[in-house]
């Protein structure tokens, strides 16, 4: 009788230790679902979804507090991807959060800029360089096109320039083939 209890107790201790070790050793950092959602979001950090950045929106989606159709830069394609990931129904982009626009980057008119640094403080990805009373300029490669720098500018010297199709960005189009009419 005592033997049986001891064997069972020993087994419980060993398994408990193993589980405890595994919990520490194979601990998953962060929330994997949030990471997956965040990977789909375009990282524009524009806040059009109503959250202060892509990560908070991802967290809200994961908790079920936000709909998947609140991200205009991600567009229809992004919503489809989120719907696939979460097993939810596809919904068209919600109009109150904005519309899908062609990808653009901000451009500062250097003649008009007064060097107030307000846009620098607004930029979510630190893509504007400049200093007080010095001309500012956009680092185009790092600009996400979030438009957050537009409202604070007191002299309206920032405009959004759609990214023109140039040679390095050119893509082969989906071929249009004329199908022969089969009688």
């Amino acid at each position, binding site marked *: 009788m005592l033997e049986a209890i001891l064997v069972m107790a020993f087994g419980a201790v060993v398994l408990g230790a193993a589980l405890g070790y595994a919990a520490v050793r194979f601990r998953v950092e962060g929330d994997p679902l949030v990471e997956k959602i*965040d990977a789909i*979001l*375009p*990282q*524009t*950090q524009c806040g059009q979804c109503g959250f202060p*950045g*892509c*990560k908070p929106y991802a967290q809200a989606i994961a908790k079920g507090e936000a709909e998947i159709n609140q991200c205009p830069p991600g567009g229809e394609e992004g919503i489809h991807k989120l719907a696939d990931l979460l097993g939810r129904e596809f919904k068209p982009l919600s109009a109150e959060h904005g519309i899908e626009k062609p990808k653009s980057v901000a451009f500062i008119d250097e003649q008009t800029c007064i060097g107030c640094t307000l846009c620098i403080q607004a930029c*979510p*990805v*630190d*893509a504007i360089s400049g200093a007080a009373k010095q001309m500012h300029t956009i680092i185009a490669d*790092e600009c*996400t096109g979030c438009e957050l720098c537009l409202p604070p500018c007191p002299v309206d010297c920032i405009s959004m320039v759609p990214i023109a*199709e*140039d*040679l390095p*960005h*050119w*893509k*082969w*189009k*989906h*071929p249009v*083939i*004329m*199908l*022969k009419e*089969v009688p």
Partner: protein
Amino acid sequence: MSRTLHTFKGGVHPPEHKAESNARPVHAAPLPRKLVIPLRQHIGNPAKPVVSVGERVLKGQLIGAADGYISAAVHASSSGTITAIGPALVPHASGLPDDCITIETDGLDEWITRTPLDYRALDPSELRMRLRDLGLAGLGGAAFPSAVKLDPGARHDCPTLILNGGECEPWITCDDVLMRQHADDILQGVAVMRHLLGSTEVIVGIEDNKPEAIAAMQAAAAKMDFATEVVAVPTIYPAGGAKQMVQTLTGKEVPSGKLSTDIGIQVFNVGTAYALARAVHRGEPLISRLVTVTGHVLRPQNVEALIGTPMQALIDVAGDRDGTTGVLMGGPMMGVPITNTGVPVIKATNCVLVKSRELFPPLPRALPCIRCTRCADACPAELQPQELFRFAKAGDFGRAQEYHLFDCIECGCCSYVCPSHIPLVDFYRYAKSEIWAREKEKRASDLARERHDFRQFRLEREKKEKAEKLAAKAKVKRAELAAAPAAEGAAAPSDADAKKALIAAALARAQAKKAEVAPKNVDHLPPEAQREIEEIEARRAKIREIAHQPLETDDKK
């Protein structure tokens, strides 16, 4: 000296059409009035312009410097004046303009001083940088910077060097003619390649439909101090593809997603070897190349064309004809359609093929894919073109990649044999560029995420640092003030008093500072200026008074 040849799967036998252009003597194309030299002629970073508009340049002078390791320089092809640096039309499938340097030639064709390189004395990496600065890029069509390919790397060695004289694409004969005329120079270039790569085995692969070229190369090889095997390979398209040439000559297959250097083999086009010889032994940068002008022209031939010459000038040399339906840069299988014949010849231009309705009848309309798998039988890369087509058409790029889309060499065999006349390669090109664009987007969004996270971290850190700094400063001040009244024997001040004292102290400091600032240039003023100043001061005082009065709001009235 016979080598067992191997075969690769698939391939097609399109009509060769080589005899039209390879019999005529080679002439240099006339010097054009205007040369347009694109900065992006090679794979990798475009060259950076190092000249300015209005500057006079000499033939062979560096006008665009290589930018980074995978890049190549560009040079003025003739002497003249720079008239523009900016977007101009270039030979590209998109028809979009790209940055170019335009030179108005002066007809003198005046060279810079050319200094041959003593390649044996130079350090290999130094020599590679020199070659990059001489603008060397592969002349077989892909225009990959040669200096990069001549770097055996730390872990690889390249025991086998293959010189590709396959030229399997119909109509094109520039490599054939080059080998007939400059076999010795080509092998001089091979000597430099051997030196850099440390290769022990040199094989020249030439399709057996070029007996003159094979004979010329064999005669030249006999004169060299290293063993070179000149091998005739069976004529089948695309035997001149680098991977196919490797397989035919060595029986080794380049693994999927790998390079031939990973199995110790490097492949160069014969034209590249010739350009390398000219660069090393004569100090001439890559400013001209042989171009086959053929198809629907009066005198199909090969011309030595300066880089930057308009293609129309070459067509004029060969004799323009009525009834042209289009122009291709390259051959009929892989060529790029050119919409404007004013675009310049670039390093990758091996052929200007003029089309006509008789030579290239329009394809019948496409029919749906019936999955006959004739394309799979023809595919030299052993892919499943019908599946790739299905995935590309549906936008299922992940599956297309699983089916090794990126092993497709875009040779066009599948489209050639397709009984439904589906432009299959166009679909693969579309899928590839979509995948590249998505990867680029992904990299951009990863960068944005990283920068946003760092910004959040920075803002937190700055807030904390500021708070700490203020707290420390306040503590010091409070201690000072606490010490002062204690000395006077007064009671210890409360927190509120301390704050008041702090503010009073700051106010006193500010006033003292203000008092120190004396107006400048007020000595020895003429009386009228003095009077003016007094008036302004009076006005200011009045404004100050008004400003200090409490606002009269409506409810007060």
